[in-house]
């Protein structure tokens, strides 16, 4: 989306006309259509099953419990905060990876993606070892500032950001690489420092890519389970997010777990669909 966004912008002054969707031929080749449909079915089937088996009659009762709303609220707040943290730290990191050249950059990029392959529970343990009360850095945080992250909502945000930020970094870095660097050069010739060029030119140009990365990170943070429960623990209203509530409900009340999952699904679909509409109209 971003690629077309920037190239469109570059081409626009020359062609002068707004871009319109390309007209497609009527035929979709079967070798593409069949796996595509199978893939779609594969992705949707579990969701459909969830809906089929949902305890619709018991749903109102499930949803009136304060724990559900607490968990939902906490999930939304912490996922949004984690996305914020990811943006503040991840966009500059993406810029560094995309726009500068330093020895070992390839290695750094690989390290950035590590949380993607690390089992989240291991990520949670690693976070404890680093930022826990007795952790490498956490010890100092506790001793000097009296800050302990485990078992706090801040800890939830940290765990979610740890798992979600790589999505944002990868997405934004790709967008930056695809973006036309000559705009930054144009800004430089107009007296803009690299930071000003980044802030006033690059960032607005790659905004759709940043937004896409942020949504991806938000969705990942919303569904985060392993790192969160390991690093931040599970306490209703403080660190019990929806996925944790779902998991624990699954232990002895699968119907409640399904109900909670439905709430999470509905909210995320609503938010994602809402965001998408806003971009469409904005761009």
């Amino acid at each position, binding site marked *: 989306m971003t690629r077309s966004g920037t190239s469109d912008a570059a081409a626009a002054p020359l062609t002068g006309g707004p871009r319109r969707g390309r007209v497609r031929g009527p035929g979709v080749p079967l070798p593409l259509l069949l796996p595509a449909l199978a893939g779609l079915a594969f992705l949707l089937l579990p969701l459909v099953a969830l809906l089929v088996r949902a305890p619709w009659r018991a749903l109102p009762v499930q949803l009136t419990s304060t724990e559900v709303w607490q968990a939902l609220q906490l999930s939304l707040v912490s996922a949004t905060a984690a996305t914020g943290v990811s943006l503040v730290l991840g966009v500059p990191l993406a810029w560094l990876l995309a726009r500068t050249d330093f020895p070992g950059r390839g290695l750094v990029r690989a390290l950035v993606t590590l949380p993607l392959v690390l089992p989240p529970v291991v990520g949670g343990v690693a976070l404890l070892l680093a930022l826990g009360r007795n952790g490498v850095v956490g010890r100092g945080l506790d001793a000097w500032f009296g800050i302990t992250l485990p078992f706090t909502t801040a800890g939830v945000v940290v765990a979610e950001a740890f798992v979600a930020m790589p999505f944002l970094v990868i997405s934004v870095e790709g967008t930056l690489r695809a973006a036309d660097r000559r705009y930054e050069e144009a800004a430089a010739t107009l007296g803009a420092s690299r930071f000003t060029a980044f802030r006033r030119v690059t960032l607005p140009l790659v905004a759709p890519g940043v937004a896409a990365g942020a949504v991806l990170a938000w969705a990942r943070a919303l569904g985060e389970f392993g790192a969160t429960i390991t690093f*931040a623990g599970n306490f209703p209203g403080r660190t019990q997010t929806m996925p944790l509530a779902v998991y624990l409900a699954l232990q002895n009340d699968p119907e409640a777990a399904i109900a909670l999952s439905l709430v999470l699904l509905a909210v995320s679909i609503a938010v994602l669909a809402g965001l998408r509409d806003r971009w469409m109209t904005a761009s």
Partner: protein
Amino acid sequence: MTRSARRTRRMLQTAGAGAAALLVLSACSSSSGSGSDSAEKSDSSASSASSTPKLSGTITVFAAASLKESFTALGQEFEKEHPGTKVSFNFGGSDTLAASITGGAPADVFAAASPKTMAIVTDKKDAAGTPVTFVRNQLEIATLPGNPHKVSSLKDLTKSGLKVVLCDKTVPCGAAAQKALGASRLKLTPVSYEQDVKSALTKVELKEADAAVVYRTDVKAAGDKVQGVEFPESAKAVNAYPIALLKNAPNTEAAEAFIALVRSAEGRDVLTKAGFLQP
């Protein structure tokens, strides 16, 4: 849910269990070197239950996470006694295991950490026969090595400033802890309700929490990474561990032999060493 839907569901589960059992059978037939057809094999094993004392094939045991160390030892013992057999374990939270058994997972034996979780399986008529309690487990407080906060009773855990983790109420160790707290009319607000007993213990091992209420066996297994503190109220919340042969067990006679080993003097010896109490 309508009755017909429920019936369909049951049928599907049974079909799923059958298919999975076939898979396990074919796996064990290849491991035992026999190339015979799996259906035929299951027939022959059923008919030869009394005629051939020689046991073979794989036994799949679903067991509560707290049994990991002792059951692993017993499994090795069993394989030594009965060459040609293989004991394969699936350790986990009792509820999760119960859910997968009722969902059709292929297993011969289920050893749960509470009668309540065993009841999930028996309610669905997935157990063959009545479950038997083979050990009991008692709660204990796990503190940091050296017990720096001088915890000596359950009441000490309610001291402010102390970071305590409990198991979530939905898992047996959490339910037991609530029972003990309720019996002594104590109100304890932990920093976290952990999803299983091992996670609770890990938080103390990593010194993120000052204390956790876990099983005696877990304290024992953790060695010197934590220090155990017994408390009298734990007697009011003793967990009985039931074991049962499962109805759809692919390898019934070997499974029965394994249960017998667990309940034998030798088995009790191993379990007691791990910190379990006699039933």
